[in-house]
């Protein structure tokens, strides 16, 4: 038995050492940093000193309109993106799962392919497709009488959502499709025998049976959405773009650290972001957990 304990220790140590160094310590350090502010000492001749300021950085971040607006952008992004992603991916998976679909392997691979494109390159491609001078899409839309500025204040959010959808739709479709394929076929046959049509089976049988996958995808999508940074950063470089350098909380933290050299504020913003993620994760798992517990009780 002792040999086994030793082996377990040896096999687990590398991961937990790295886990501590790369996740636990930075979180602790961020919390610590967020409690301090660099202040000019004296008349500004004596250099800077680090002063404990308690929760000042948090009140400063939360008091900053730009930071709060960043969360507003995230909220708008989630409200637009998450329903479109879930409905789109689930819809495509149901189509693929229906008895009528052909060439399933081809469709799966083709729909998944954009996920193999690095996020930064996906953003670059789409920004080029949004730029009037470069884009055949904008030119085609104009020829059709549709004038849409992808960089305008109204256009920026849909532009970012479109890039994210392009990257993640196929990925999540594969997850849903796998969950649908795992459904016991006799359940579906029973429903058919009972006279249920394809729509009825999809909504009353298939979707309820893949709820766990839906909840998991929703959870990871929320966490991913909170990290929104790369795509808007690229759009931010477009001239005349409505995307500012503090458009999302993550961009705010980045700007605070590297443009303003205010590490305390940047740390506070990062901690607030991580806390939001934790709260939302807790809420989502709690909601789905309760539903599961309720089901077990009635069963």
């Amino acid at each position: 038995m002792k040999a086994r304990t030793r082996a377990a220790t040896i096999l687990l140590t590398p991961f937990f050492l790295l886990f501590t160094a790369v996740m636990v310590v930075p979180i602790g350090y961020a919390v610590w940093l967020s409690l301090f502010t660099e202040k000019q000492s004296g008349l500004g001749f004596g250099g800077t000193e680090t002063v404990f300021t308690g929760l000042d950085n948090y009140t400063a971040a939360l008091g900053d309109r730009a930071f709060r607006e960043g969360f507003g952008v995230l909220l708008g992004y989630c409200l637009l993106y998450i329903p479109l992603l879930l409905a789109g991916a689930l819809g495509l998976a149901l189509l693929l799962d229906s008895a009528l679909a052909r060439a399933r392997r081809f469709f799966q691979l083709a729909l998944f392919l954009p996920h193999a494109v690095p996020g930064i390159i996906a953003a670059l491609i789409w920004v080029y497709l949004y730029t009037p001078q470069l884009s055949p899409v904008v030119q085609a839309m104009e020829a059709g009488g549709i004038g849409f500025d992808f960089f305008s204040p109204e256009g920026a959010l849909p532009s970012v959502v479109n890039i994210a959808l392009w990257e993640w739709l196929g990925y999540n479709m594969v997850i849903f499709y796998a969950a649908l394929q795992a459904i016991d076929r006799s359940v579906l046959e029973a429903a058919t025998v009972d006279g249920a049509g394809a729509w009825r089976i999809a909504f009353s049988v298939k979707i309820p049976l893949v709820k766990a996958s839906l909840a998991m995808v929703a959870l990871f999508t929320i966490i991913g959405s909170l990290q929104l940074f790369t795509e808007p950063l690229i759009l931010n470089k477009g001239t005349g773009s409505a995307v500012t350098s503090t458009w999302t909380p993550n961009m705010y933290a980045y700007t605070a650290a590297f443009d303003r050299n205010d590490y305390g504020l940047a740390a506070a913003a990062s901690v607030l972001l991580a806390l939001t993620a934790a709260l939302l994760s807790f809420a989502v798992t709690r909601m789905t957990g309760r539903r599961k517990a309720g089901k077990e009780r009635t069963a």
Partner: protein
Amino acid sequence: MTGRPRTGSVWLSKAAVNGALVLAVVYMLFPLVWLLTAATKDAGGLLAGNAFSFEGFDLGGNLSRLAAYNDGIYFHWYANSLLYAGAGALACSLVSVAAGYAFHVYDFRGKEKLFGLVLLGVLVPTTALALPMYLLASEIGVVNTYWAVLIPVLVNPFGVYLSRVFCAGYIPDEALEAARIDGAGELRVFWSIGLRMVMPGFVTVFLFQFTAVWNNFFLPLVMLSDQKLYPLSLGLYAWNSNAHAEPDFYPLVVTGSLLAVVPLVVAFVSLQRHWKAGLTAGSVK
């Protein structure tokens, strides 16, 4: 579609279902087709003319300009990306599989609590960590080195979770028992039996981490200032920032992007079985 549908309506439904799928495929693929055709054009051709054609085909010219620019720094970035993603993902998979194997095979006090910590790690937004990591790295003086990008990518809590699931699926207890009876030590059992049997899981974790590191942008952005250490993502970003002032950078960015996508597309097409297994292991328990 109750009862027995007439052949006409089946044909119509079939057309509707497959038509909708084809439309989705067009949406997914046309940006990639654009990337392919755009990479064959020079700056003038990109800014004028039909982008979806091979008109003014000059892929060779773009490639040689790519190789020549700034003493071929692009291929330096390519090598860096291969190093970060290759070495990083290999070490990460080994670390993850070792931990996942230990969680599956051994019983010890507080095991599920420790595993809960791993699951909690899955939920931490990594970009919220990048900034504190940078500040920490600058304290200990590893900012702007290879290590600053390599060490953080060795950790993937989701990889540990996947490895545990895969170990449960691929390693029968009898095989381990047999090896123990033959007198193999515990680590020997892991190395020669466990690791071999869970190889499909290892490849899956490797594939996912390789992609993640290849796509990694935020971490190198905060950690690196020396262009020589850049991965492709950061290099292309830097070039793109110049393109607004100098349109000559457009063909470099577009052709560079095309080449940067190729390894991942090849990996995903050839390893279909593995990424599907990885996606499903994460979703359907």
